């Protein structure tokens, strides 16, 4: 990477350079991330493991442009995200990053199809319904388009969340404990979906504390007390 311009070669999608994140908790300063350096190439499936409180989610939020680092630079496809205003951050989240959360984060009043349509709607795309339907069919939920989250099992809800993340064909999918709320068999099924996406060339950052899930990554990183180890 060119340190002056921050430009990376085209293979590097995400680049974290000396990232620190500090929270103020009353009079205490909590150092959630300490000097994180990371480069993620396109098409990689990176697993990040770590115990609770190690800073996994904080790292994922910074990678997802949901949070700002206290110190350091984060380059997304060669662009320093510190220079992004709220509109650019929102656009990046909307079009280039897909999120899969442990608790699914689906809208309970909307159907599976409407949940998956959400990012397309905010992106102002055309053919929303057919694209959303296609994404749901891809994760095996073609028969559950009009079901609401409450009418779906945990595994099915996570599939809806995956469909929502991939429907906009993002550059990267960030998954925060995607199997954390699922039993082992359903979790395996979900991981097969991630593997399939990876085989199709999708860049995936997978955060987990489950070693079995972490083994699926092309690269395994460990986060301990806010520090990243290969």
């Amino acid at each position, binding site marked *: 990477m060119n340190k002056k311009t921050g430009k990376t070669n085209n293979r590097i999608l995400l680049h974290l350079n000396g990232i620190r994140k500090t929270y103020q908790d009353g009079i205490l300063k909590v150092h959630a991330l300490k000097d994180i350096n990371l480069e993620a190439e396109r098409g990689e499936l990176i697993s990040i493991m770590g115990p609770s409180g190690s800073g996994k*989610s904080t790292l994922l*939020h910074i990678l*997802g442009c*949901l*949070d700002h680092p206290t110190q350091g630079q984060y380059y997304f496809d060669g662009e320093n995200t510190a220079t992004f205003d*709220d*509109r650019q951050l*929102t*656009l990046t*989240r*909307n*079009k280039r990053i897909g*999120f899969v*959360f442990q*608790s699914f*984060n*689906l*809208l309970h*009043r909307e159907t599976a199809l409407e949940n998956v349509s*959400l*990012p397309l709607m*905010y*992106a102002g795309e055309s053919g929303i319904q057919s694209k959303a339907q296609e994404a749901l069919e891809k994760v095996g939920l073609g028969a559950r388009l009009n079901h609401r989250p409450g009418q779906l099992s945990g595994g099915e809800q996570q599939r809806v969340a995956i469909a*929502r993340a991939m429907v906009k064909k993002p550059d990267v999918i960030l998954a925060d404990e995607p199997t954390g709320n699922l039993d082992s068999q359903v979790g395996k099924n979900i991981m097969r979906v991630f593997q399939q996406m990876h085989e199709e060339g999708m860049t995936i950052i997978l955060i987990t504390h489950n070693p079995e899930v972490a083994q699926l990554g092309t690269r395994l990183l460990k986060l301990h007390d806010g520090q990243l180890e290969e």
Partner: protein
Amino acid sequence: MTIMAVLSGIKVQMYEDLKQVGLDVVNVQLVPNLENLFIGPLVTEDTQWMQEQSKGGLLAPFRADMAVGANLENQQTLEFLILETTHEWGNIVPLNISEGRFIYKGETEFCVLDEWIADRFFPEGNAVGKELFINASEGIRNLTVAGVLKDPFEVRKKFDELDFAGSARSTLNRMLEFKSIYILGDFSEPHEPIHGAVIKVPKDIDALSTAKSIQKEAKRRDLPAIAWARSQWVDNVMRGADLTTQVAGMLWIVVLLVTSVMILTISLVAIRERYYELAVRRTEGARRLQIVSQLLLENMILSLTGGFLAIGLAHGAGYLLETRYLSWSPAFLPHEMALAIGLGAGLGALATILPAYRAASLDPVKILRIA
């Protein structure tokens, strides 16, 4: 909204009713004070000068007395005001005759009843030609009914049903409420004892200026007279009605302000309940403006639906009031309804913008972490 419509309706109906008392009529009361407007002491007075002041208007003197009447057929007795006048009364005061006619000249054995009295003496109807016994200060008289005068005051018809004979109403109210019997009196001499006169001013003469000139002449003659144009009285009543409507309007604004505070609180709570949903939307790429617009649009739809529903309910309540309790139609004025809907939508928008902007500015990560 219903209350405003009822008040607007009463104003419209009152004006229609009041117009019927004769806007070109001047009343002259020869009384020392307003308390004894109709049955104060009689004054022997020539009415010639009053007629001259009205520049040739039509004049009918009158005497009023309290009397008791009876219909021997159904043993019904009533207390009422008996008004002695001339046959010209029928040409001066606009009469809304529901049955028969007014008394002709020389028909001293005939009488005309106000509808209220006719309904009680002859509940089966057809009062014309029937007989009544009247006991006034001049003694007992046997009179034949020539006609029945319809009560012009639609506004109080339903309230009137609550009234009963012998209620402690003032004599003035009795007169104004059309609970009288009209008979012909003897006013043949130039100076007769009278209580006053009614004068219909000629078409090209202003009733108000006529009343003033009669009042001025009475003062010059040192007479305890009160002269008033009925149009002036109508204006005063309408001004009073306007004032009532304005007071109600102010109360309505206070209610609206209180309601808007309630809407703001409800809106705050409702949006707070949706923080999780809004955080998910923000994560998925919704901009702040899109979040604010969505909440505003939702609230506008709710406010407008509520507004139209309220208008429908207000119409329903107005219909119920009209059929059960009121004698006039509540007036749902288009500009008042538009104002109500506009204010509702405006307040809804105001109550949404701040909480919506606050919700859109929250950190979605924090919200999702708490959720």
